[in-house]
């Protein structure tokens, strides 16, 4: 099997150029530019916060922060995967004409999205300071946790981008799937409001762990428990391994399948 690390480092300048190009082109010719990346989820967040704390009247302390922690985790994965799924097909012009390691394309997509999302988290932190957020040492755990989110999203994207070459339905299936998981995961509500039996089923939802992993440092001001660390790490490694394996297995055929 190829060595992804070697491929990536020897093409790191291309990777950098692709990321810069993507970010640049995304915000070109829009007046608010990068602000949209923040405004968009922020308005979503505010609407949800308003609906559930003021109208439905969830009895929860700092509901906005609770919501923010879950959404930050969910959106990080969802937006990244949905975009990176098209990474091979969208770059087919290049793939059919020049010889570069194909893993660069999904990686560039995923990294560009993470640049956005990390910036988003930092800026929302400032914004949420207003709602009371305690800056404790536990926030440090976000650094490895974001890395796990990154590895998980990358693995997921490698898989979905390969499938997308032959089955374009994948994009629709994923977007429906993510939508379902938005409501099936404890993002807008805490797990505790569910009946006992249902709570157990929720433990099989991978998003549950990612969401909780952000919630511990941001909302509960605590380091996540070992089980959260373990499961998120496990999911990241398994998805990345699977993604890489499938991607490299199929990589040689990309050029024949694209048309």
């Amino acid at each position, binding site marked *: 099997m190829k060595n992804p690390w070697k491929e990536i480092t*020897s093409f790191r300048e291309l990777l950098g150029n692709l990321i810069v190009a993507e970010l640049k082109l995304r915000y070109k010719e829009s007046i608010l530019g990068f602000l949209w990346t923040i405004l968009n989820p922020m308005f979503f967040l505010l609407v949800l916060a308003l609906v559930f704390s003021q109208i439905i009247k969830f009895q929860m302390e700092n509901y906005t922060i609770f919501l923010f922690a879950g959404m930050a985790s969910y959106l990080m994965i969802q937006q990244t995967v949905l975009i990176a799924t098209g990474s091979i097909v969208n770059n087919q012009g290049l793939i059919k*004409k*020049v010889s570069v390691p194909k893993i660069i394309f999904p990686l560039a997509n995923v990294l560009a999205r993470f640049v956005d999302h990390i910036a988003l988290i930092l800026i929302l932190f400032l914004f949420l300071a207003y709602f009371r957020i305690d800056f404790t040492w536990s926030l440090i755990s976000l650094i490895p946790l974001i890395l796990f989110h990154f590895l998980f999203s990358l693995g997921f994207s490698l898989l979905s981008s390969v499938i997308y070459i032959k089955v374009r339905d994948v994009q629709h299936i994923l977007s429906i799937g993510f939508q379902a998981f938005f409501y099936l995961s404890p993002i807008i509500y805490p797990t505790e409001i569910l009946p006992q039996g249902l709570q157990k089923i929720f433990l099989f939802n991978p998003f549950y762990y990612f969401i909780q992993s952000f919630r511990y440092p941001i909302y509960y001001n605590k380091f996540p428990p070992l089980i959260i660390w373990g499961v998120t790490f496990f999911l990241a490694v398994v998805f990345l391994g699977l993604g890489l394996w499938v991607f490299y297995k199929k990589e040689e055929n990309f*050029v024949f399948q694209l048309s």
Partner: protein
Amino acid sequence: MKAESELMTNKASKPTVEVDSVSIRFMLPQDGGSRPPEKKGIFARFKKPPKREFWALQDVSLDVQKGEILGIIGGNGAGKSTLLKLIAGIFPPTTGGVKTCGTVAPLLELGAAFNPELTGLENIYLTGSIYRIPRKIIRENIDRIIDFSGLEQFTRVPVKNYSSGMFMRLAFSMVIFFKPEIVLIDEVFSVGDESFQQKSFEKILSFRKRGASIILVTHDANLITRICDRVLVLSDGKLSFLGGAEEAVRHYRQLIQSGEGLDRRRQEVKPKPDSSRWGSKEVEILSVDFVDEKGQTKKDFLSGDYFEARIRFRSSLKNQAPVFGVAVSTIYKLFIYGPNTLEAEFPDKVPSSGVVRFVIPQLPLMEGDYLFSAAAYDETLSKAYDHHEQMYHFRILKDQKKEFGSVRIRSLWKLEHE
């Protein structure tokens, strides 16, 4: 492969490009068979469409030395471009191996790596990173690149707003300053303004002085004899000749005259999924030619002439014969006549390949253009092996007679007194 190539760059005696008995197989979608429409369930979508093998290259070996210019000639579809893409690392070989030492600059398609939304300057850096030219080197050369391209005014304009000439200038200028060890050229010199072409071409040829290898695909026999050290002739994806330029061109000309190796694609790939051809291809109609009584191929006939359609076919049927049929219609799609071998004396076995001759001793057709269909069916005439619907054309020229219509019907005129 990449890491290997870096290590070997400095060994002088090694060839820069080594292609070792390479074959490439494409799996093309099997076309035809889609008409007449079959009942398709919703699950039909999940069935894999049948695929057909196509060997674009078969057992090709070659090596290119430092400072050498290798020419590649061959007919359309002989595999020339596939060979270049193989050396460029775009196509993986199905069997065999390819080794390259040093930076490969494939001029297969100019500015292939350009992102139309980015500016000229940004694209220089982007393309540079695709060929792994360190940013530092690009920065050092950037003024000279822009200078050579003559696009000083446009470096901050998105490439999508460039004219095709400007696009080409930028693409060339970059390659020239990246000093590649291997240059692959696929007939790119036929576009753009001539003075720049000349300038670029000379510059590229000068690369050989510092040891670069150049592989050039072209149809231009003059160009080949003028600049190439050795020439490879490809025919049907196979290496047909490799040697001196003069001899290679002679070999290629012979190949053309014998009709071999020319336009293989016309037969292999032409069965496009268009409405005019369908069938399962157990019997395949390879060609249809019209000839006169001397066997000369022709398209123009006179009313009353001898007419013969020669239908070349290939059959994989065992123990049963296909039914051959033809049809003649006017160009206004008026169907005139459609006979078949079921209603005629015809052997009930056919060889695996052969020619069916459909003869009209005296053409009853009158002046005009006619469309000709040829088909092979099973005995029940329900399953098409290969149906070429109105794919061929012949013409009846005007003669002296003052009669009108499409078909001459044998008839008499009589007069009676009352």
